């Protein structure tokens, strides 16, 4: 299930150069909503270089969306054991990222990582994909986002122009390896 925000993604396939930002997560499930919230805030202002798409419950249809994009940034909640609010920038493919465990927050146990893996299994050529993971704390239906995640959401939104320009540069260092930014580390998204 996807909810369009900003410009329709159809423009991506025609232009092929723009950044598609996917915000994943259940908006009613506390910190799981981090990705969707980032996209909601970013899409409130016009951005000629980016398209924003909220995908609260990513389905298999996401495959077509990914294949039609120029560069993709997937913003989603992650759980690695790091302190809540930690930000992870992970270029895809990445063996460190596993699909979400089956939980009350997913439908049919399907998500963006499964979609990326399906694309690979089918031999599809994906555009460059970066995963921006926001480490979760509270994860209950009806819960509010934790303070730590709320601060990280705000940081991502504030630093998004820098991230955007780095993602547009295929030689930027952030494409080389996964990086982690602890909550007290304000250097996100790096150089």
């Amino acid at each position, binding site marked *: *299930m996807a909810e369009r925000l900003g410009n329709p993604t159809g423009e991506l396939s025609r232009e092929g150069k723009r950044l598609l930002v996917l915000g994943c997560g259940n908006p009613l499930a506390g910190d799981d909503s981090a990705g969707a919230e980032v996209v909601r805030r970013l899409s409130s202002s016009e951005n000629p270089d980016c398209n924003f798409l909220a995908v609260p*419950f990513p389905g*298999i*249809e996401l495959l077509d969306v990914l294949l039609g994009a120029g560069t993709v940034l997937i913003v989603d909640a992650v759980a690695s054991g790091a302190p809540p609010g930690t930000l992870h920038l992970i270029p895809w493919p990445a063996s460190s990222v596993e699909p979400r465990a089956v939980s*009350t927050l997913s*439908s*049919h*146990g399907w998500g963006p990582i499964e979609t990326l893996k399906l694309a690979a*299994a089918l031999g599809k050529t994906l555009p460059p994909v970066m995963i921006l993971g926001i480490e979760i704390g509270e994860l209950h239906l009806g819960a509010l986002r934790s303070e730590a995640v709320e601060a990280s959401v705000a940081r991502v939104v504030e630093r998004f122009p820098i991230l955007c320009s780095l993602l547009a540069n295929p030689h930027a260092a952030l494409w080389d390896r996964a990086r982690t930014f602890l909550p007290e580390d304000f250097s996100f998204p790096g150089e």
Partner: protein
Amino acid sequence: MANEGAGKTIKVEYLTRVEGEGGLFIRTENGNVRDVKLNIFEPPRFFEGFLRGRHFQEVPDITARICGICPVAYQMSAVHALEAALGVTPGPEIRLLRRLLYCAEWIESHALHIYMLNAPDYLGYESVVALAGEHPQEVERGLRLKKIGNQLLEILGGRATHPVSACVGGFYKVPRARELRKLRDDLLWGLEAAKQTLAWVVTFKFPDFSPNYEFVSVSHPDEYPMNERRVISSDGIDIDPVDFERVFLEEHVEHSTALHSVRADRATSYLVGPLARLALNFEKLLPQAKAAARAIVATQPGRNPFRGIVARAIELIHAYEEALAIIETYQEPATSRVEIKVHAGEGCAATEAPRGLLYHRYRLNDRGLVEAARIIPPTAQNMRRMEDDLRELLPGIIARPDAEIAQTCENLIRTYDPCISCSTHFLKLRIERG
């Protein structure tokens, strides 16, 4: 999983590749099955409660939100039940468009279940991702089959998930004929691809298992059942939907937030869904679907739940065939919806969601506000039957390793394509103290 002397407990904490939250508990003693429970711990949804006080025209858009896979069935069951309450009968063009809406939903739901959720079980893969690695052509076919259903639903309903065009009395907006006919080539491709799907799934190896089901489905004198009319069973039930709650009873069981349905007169389980529809309505399949089904006579699904995938493939052909026939002859109706005179009333309807019969009943006051709502989803109706199936299946496999037993049971449950999120709701509890 744990072995305790002569007794054995098998737990599947989370059922995978099903919609919603459920687990399975099995207890045996001295090789005998003592206890089988489908634990449904998905939180109850309370839709029937928060529909109360809503205007009748809000109901279809609210009930569509019950399910992301089968919103049309929830929307249209509500529409039909409310039209019965208000004495409204839309014209034949609207009726055809509604069948087209069902075709779209059956296409996307059946393609999803066949290719993404169920086929990996029979071919020995843990998921569709693993399946895609070795059977990319088939998975690509499944993805396109599903996508066409989504596109059809988007044209008809305004969007592919939780469509917004249907209303009591008709549609807020009907599609242009040229919009629908743009899909003609895709639907023609889909019809052939659906036949290939059937040819593919009948090559799977299915466990030999045929419980003595009572099949229950909607029945129409001239059509394969989708959105009306009576409710029939293989044991002779033939009722108007107004008698549904007299003939079938919902019970609360401690281990499930989904109610269990049984026949009221003898407390027995029954089966709804593609196997039941096909068994009770085979002759009403459209010609190409019927011919394709007859051609595989040796592998007819019959009463084997594991062959439910074969029934779905036959219905996939039917849905494509009917969708094509409708768009070929479609003419935009002069008015998209009939006028409604609001009055107090009560009405019900039974329609066929991809997973089986779905019953709705509503009581309206003289301002058209909902006073009472009742929704009986297909997965809740099948819940008792699933447990009965497991009780019948287990004695034949109980000597096998625990992991294999768990896998076989999980496969069996997945054949039902259970939509657990849709099925969870609680009975209202009233305590009288003397």
